[in-house]
């Protein structure tokens, strides 16, 4: 029997302790948001309030079914949306109030896919990550080239630099998109469903790489994903979203409770604890 089974876990959001540890990189404090069709109409979707913290070198996975509020939370973390109430701080600064370029130096958001209108070489694409550093109309410096080269090397895409973006495989493209985000030299790296178009080998490689990057560069990495087992394997903490609320946040072992996961994902699931202490979710035979 899985450890989470039969412990009476409910779907009510649990209070999150708010101790302030050292090197808190990301601090989300009672942040909420609401989408409305018009200024005067009732909200169509409400998020929050959500609270959690993440430190340097931490990898946080945001989990939840579709329309649970993951992407809205990601936009709040990226500063692209201003919270209706509460705060989202990166290194003590309210991220939505930063000037766009200053924000892009602090926070990099890796999109799911890059839709190029015209062909672009890999190195040109990665150099775009240096845009936040400099004037509006700018030409890349030697330092920019060095940073872009380092970013490519860090994702193991050094050999791709002269290739065209539209000739890359899904995995190669994902690495290059990540390299552009690394070229921004951010403090906080956000990835919105980065494993969506990858095969299982690509997914494992990407999560392993993110883990290494978080450790080596002191990044705080936040990943939105549907991959429960990969999140359990590689993340320090997971936040479980459901219907616009953050139901649980904690270590994977703390959050992965069978009743909660079954209710949230509306599927018969089992939770096992592996020898490493990390949980694993499997589909229950009783479906």
């Amino acid at each position, binding site marked *: 029997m899985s450890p989470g089974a039969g412990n009476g876990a409910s779907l009510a959001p649990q209070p999150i302790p708010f101790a302030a540890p050292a090197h808190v990189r990301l601090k989300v404090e009672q942040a909420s948001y609401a989408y409305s069709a018009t200024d005067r109409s009732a909200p169509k979707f409400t998020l929050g309030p959500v609270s959690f913290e993440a430190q340097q070198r931490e990898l946080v996975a945001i989990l939840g079914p579709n329309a649970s509020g993951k992407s809205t939370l990601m936009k709040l973390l990226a500063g692209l949306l201003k919270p209706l109430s509460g705060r989202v701080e990166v290194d003590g600064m309210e991220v939505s109030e930063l000037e766009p*370029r200053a924000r892009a130096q602090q926070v990099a958001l890796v999109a799911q896919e*890059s*839709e190029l209108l015209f062909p672009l070489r890999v190195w040109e694409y990665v150099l775009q990550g240096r*845009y*936040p550093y400099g004037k509006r109309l700018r030409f890349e410096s030697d330092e920019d080239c060095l940073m872009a080269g380092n970013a490519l090397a860090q994702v193991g895409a050094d050999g791709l630099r002269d290739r065209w973006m539209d000739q890359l495989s899904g995995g190669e493209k994902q690495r290059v998109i990540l390299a552009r985000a690394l070229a921004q030299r951010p403090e906080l790296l956000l990835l919105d469903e980065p494993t969506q178009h990858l095969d299982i080998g690509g997914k494992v490689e990407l999560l392993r790489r993110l883990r290494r990057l978080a450790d080596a560069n002191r990044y705080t990495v936040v990943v939105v994903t549907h991959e429960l087992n990969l999140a359990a394997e590689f993340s320090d903490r997971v936040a479980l979203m459901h219907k616009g609320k953050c139901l649980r946040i904690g270590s994977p072992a703390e959050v992965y409770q069978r009743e909660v996961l079954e209710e949230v994902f509306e599927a018969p699931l089992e939770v096992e604890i592996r020898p490493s202490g990390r949980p694993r979710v499997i589909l229950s035979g009783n479906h």
Partner: protein
Amino acid sequence: MRPLTPNRIIGICAGLGALLLIEVVISLRMGDYPLAVRDIVATLYHGAAGRWDEIPSEFKLVVFGLRLPRIALGILVGAALSTAGAGFQALLRNPLADPYVLGVSSGAALGAMLSLIVAPHMVGAIQFAAFAGAAATIAAVYFLGRRGGQLDSATLLLAGIVAASFLSAIIIFLLTMVTGTELRSMTFWLMGDLTAPPPTTNVIGWFGFLFLIFVVAAGAMYTTSSDLNLILTGEQEARHLGVNVNRVKMVVYVAASVLTGLAVSVSGAIGYIGLLVPHVMRMLFGTDYRLLIPTSAIGGAIVIVLADTLARTVVAPTQLPVGAMTALAGAPVFIYLMRRRMR
């Protein structure tokens, strides 16, 4: 990794500029009254130095009275249309966008036609009316093309197509109401033509005024060229990287529309230049807008001067409208580019 440098831009533009200069001299030579290169150089030299007495009167008439104003207008119109086309392709994130896609040319054409009907002999009326028609269309499409208070590329494109279609219907209605000389003027104008004389005797002042508008609008667009490079990879991604997308779209929309209005109000709707030249420049020099905007401007000038030289010489003494020439050559070039892109 070889990033773009200002020196590389200057070098490429200087090369294209030299090509344009050679073409201008060749164009000045060609026509019913052929001139030797030596005579052209001497005429231009004396004219630039203000020594008008030393220029034979027939050279003065042919070079400064007929051919040079037409070439200068062609350079300005070609540069304006190509720059506007490059801007609209990025703004609308659509490689098929051209300067006329948002209906600016239809608005200008309607203004010009109304002036041909109401005040056919008033000096400068057609240019003024065309620019007013273009400006009114720019404003209408801007208000129709907003979503949530901001310019939305898809909504803007739809608003432009609807505006162009509505204005074209009015133009066709007007064409059925006029006859004779007016109809011929209108048809020439709709096709695009560089033969319209300047509306003032101060030709240098007139071109200076047009050039100033071009420099301000193209310069404004150029300031956004780094931003446009990022917008081409997606508006949302550009926002993540710190681009103020709404401001950039506003600047590019106004600048590209003013450039289109400028070109159409002095020459009618010359087709294919704004669509094809930016694509050819992308194939030659890459997609970076810091290089694409100036090379498109010079490339547009080169293409239109070539087209107009052919238009006034291939079936001389009959002169074709330059728009007919660009359409004749543009359609096969477009098919070639499209097939090359598909490969």
